[in-house]
């Protein structure tokens, strides 16, 4: 199979970008999409041209590095997978494939298809953790966590932080990303003591970083490689509302433990 690629090329964050056409050599249907791009780059290097910059690392759908908008859809045509898990057998020979970077105000372009997603790290630093010291933790079986509860926490925690949800959202909102973390840590008992502070801090950080608000269109769920469910957004909204009530109940004072644990 051979393909025509229209790839977004942009030198740096402040340069103008444009789509450039490339023809691939013979591609096997068993090749991954990224291996196909590797092939394009090998030829560019030999021609003395600048290879296409794109992000990738584990190539098994878990590190969250890869981040291509393929024919207008983050991570491409298949549901529930990252770009690196996309194989060329999904396409037909002769197809024209457009490849663009994540586009969002909070994700400035570094080069070509590589964007700066450090805003997601800053959301996590704002509150996406349980503040416990190393050492002195109680035995893991002291906290009994029901199987279903653990599975729900795991569903939410499986977010790979790729940012496809942001790229797919017309408001470039990181609501699903934040919701996944809030739901993960809010579902398990260890996360309860800080739940009000956490949700308030992460929502505030989301505004600060230039992410938009949720428009309830669910594009995020449609492109999420881990199929994180938008029902966690409902959890987030509930937690946020609840946090407001908790804080309103005790102005200027630390939250009483009672109010924090449901």
């Amino acid at each position, binding site marked *: 199979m051979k393909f025509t690629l229209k790839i977004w090329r942009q030198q740096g964050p402040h340069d103008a970008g444009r789509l450039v056409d490339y023809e691939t050599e013979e591609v096997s249907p*068993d*090749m*991954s999409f990224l*291996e196909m791009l590797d*092939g394009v*780059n*090998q030829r560019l*290097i030999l021609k*003395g041209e*600048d*290879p296409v*910059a794109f*992000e*990738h*690392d*584990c*190539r098994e759908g*878990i*590190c*969250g*590095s890869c981040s291509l908008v393929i024919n207008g859809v983050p991570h491409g045509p*298949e549901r529930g*997978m990252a770009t690196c*898990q996309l*194989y060329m057998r999904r396409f037909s020979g002769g197809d024209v494939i457009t490849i663009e970077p994540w586009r969002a105000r909070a994700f400035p372009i*570094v080069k070509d298809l*590589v964007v700066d*997603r*450090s805003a*997601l*790290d800053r959301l*996590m*630093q*704002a509150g996406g*953790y*349980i503040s*416990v*010291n*190393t*050492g002195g*933790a109680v*035995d*893991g*079986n002291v*906290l*009994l*966590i*029901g*199987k279903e*509860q*653990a599975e729900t*926490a*795991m569903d939410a*925690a*499986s977010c790979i*932080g790729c940012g496809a949800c942001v790229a797919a959202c017309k408001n470039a909102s990181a609501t699903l990303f934040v919701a996944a973390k809030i739901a*993960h*840590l809010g579902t*398990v008992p*260890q996360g309860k003591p800080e739940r009000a502070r956490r949700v308030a801090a992460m929502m505030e950080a989301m505004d600060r970083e230039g992410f938009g608000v949720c428009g309830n269109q669910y594009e995020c769920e449609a492109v999420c490689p881990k199929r994180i469910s938008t029902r966690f957004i409902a959890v987030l909204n509930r937690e946020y509302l609840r946090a407001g009530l908790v804080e309103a109940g005790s102005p200027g004072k630390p939250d009483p433990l009672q109010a924090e644990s449901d």
Partner: protein
Amino acid sequence: MTLDPKIPPGPLETKWDRRRFTERLVSPGNKRRLNIIVVGTGLAGASAASTLGQLGYQVECFCSQDSPRRAHSIAAQGGINAAKNYQDDGDSVARLFYDTLKGGDFRSREANVYRLAQVSTQIIDQCVALGVPFAREYGGQLANRSFGGVQVARTFYCRGQTGQQLLLGAYSALCWQIERGQVTMRPRTEMLDLIVIDGHARGIVVRDLVTGRITAHMAQAVVLATGGYGNVYYRSTNASSCNVTATFRAWKHGAAFANPCFTQIHPTAIPPVDTHQAKLTLMSESLRNDGRLWVPIAPADRRLPEEIPLSERDYFLERRYPRFGNLVPRDVASRAVKAMCDEGRGVGPGGHGVYLDFADVIERQGLGVVQERYGNLFEMYQRITGEDAYRVPMRIYPAPHYTMGGLWVDYNLMSTIPGLFVIGEANFADHGANRLGASSLMQGLADGYFILPYTMGHYLASAPPSPSAEEQRASCAAVERVTGQVANLLRANGRRTAASFHREVGKILWDHCGMARSRTGLTGALEAIPALREEFWRDVAVPGSGEAFNQELEYAGRVADFLEFAELLCHDALHREESCGAHFREEYQTTDGEPQRDDDRFAHVAAWEYRRKESPVLHKEPLVFEFVQPTTRSYQ
């Protein structure tokens, strides 16, 4: 060079307690004034950086990825071992210790391995406290499964994404310390050199991968948590950015490199389809809990698997190792798979594969159970191969996966350069000649959360202060040196890509220093590698400039180091005239193909010292077994 392992005296059970008590401490007020550099943010690096930050040190943490959460620990699938004995199936610290020591074919230190087993239980508790969503039973207790080389169920897991969840736990702890101002995080930076002043590690040189700026960063101590070198084989299960550069460049400053030839070839990866494909995808060892490996009895049998009746199948692991069956350790399983394929009984394209079949468990326990246990792995398999493993058996083939070798460290995890600590896969310490499944996550977190933070304090409390004038001179010289190296890569302006060299050196190693090694093969490799390296520097094509985001330049630098490191690997494999663990020398095997270990001559750690323009020099740290008698490692 002297190798003093600094193992505390006394009974095995109290060595670590004794060390912790005799260690000197740094007072809280002084910790604030001490800077520590941590390179790498996988399980070891992230847990170390967050714990050191929490203790009050000023930590500067570097990673090459765009976010610390993307380090390659994230890809570990199966689980993490701990001697909790929650199943009441006879597990204990002593048994985890013994299994790990035996699994490593008695080529690791007793004291280190015992300590690892001791702290394993704390790791689970710590991870639970951080919110890691481990699998649970209906009653709410933690669930366990079994892994290769053991007869108890001591592996804790989060579906097939255990590494991800443990790393996100450590990353969240790191986020907290970043927020508190205790850790300064520098993503998208690559360490390219170590700065040593008066024999002590005092800093590193990094290249900012976005701007290309090369800068020196100074500290009272440096921690390398930069992972393993499995990518030296080109084809491996590692992420594409995994490399040997940080540890290799530290080696050139005098840190001994130990047992580089101990490289783990994992038995169950998806076979490659294309010569250019570097990434091989692992199918977790946990699958061998329920999947059965087999090949047709007749060579070159081209029938579909379902057309081959039971009587014409060879369940070769169950036949050869009835006691452990499909759950033999990785090195044993990989060699058995290779043997089947060498006999012409392999399946799939080129005969490079064996079946991993789930039909029996699906019939016994139902499809639902298998889906729940391994759903994401089956899905992954389907995406890559286009085949549905619930209906047809998986095809698997061995792939380089993990490296037991690494920089030599003493019991305190310090290398032969004072002030340079090495943790996680980057060091050599705990797995001997073969690592058991679900033990790498255990070791990474043991080092980072519970061991290094103690031993680091002792070093800092007794280290001499660094003269600032000397610091200035040394850092300028180091930056200049690295700038020159980067310029050299761009200068060749040749006709071959870095990847083509990487592929070639990888093939040399896979053929001659992979699952089977021989004197002839290794000697040949030692001639071929320098020639290839020379060609690299003459003919590599690296586009663009050093003062910009340039992924090909990063890659070429890593390949350059692999081309030198490959030689060290072969030297080590050549010196070790025995077969042990993952190191299989064809000259040293029994008549039925089992490895022959030689404790009289090789019960030592081989630590190699760098010599400029000469062959590396071998130093031996004898392995003394006071508490366990090394036996022939048998899983039959």
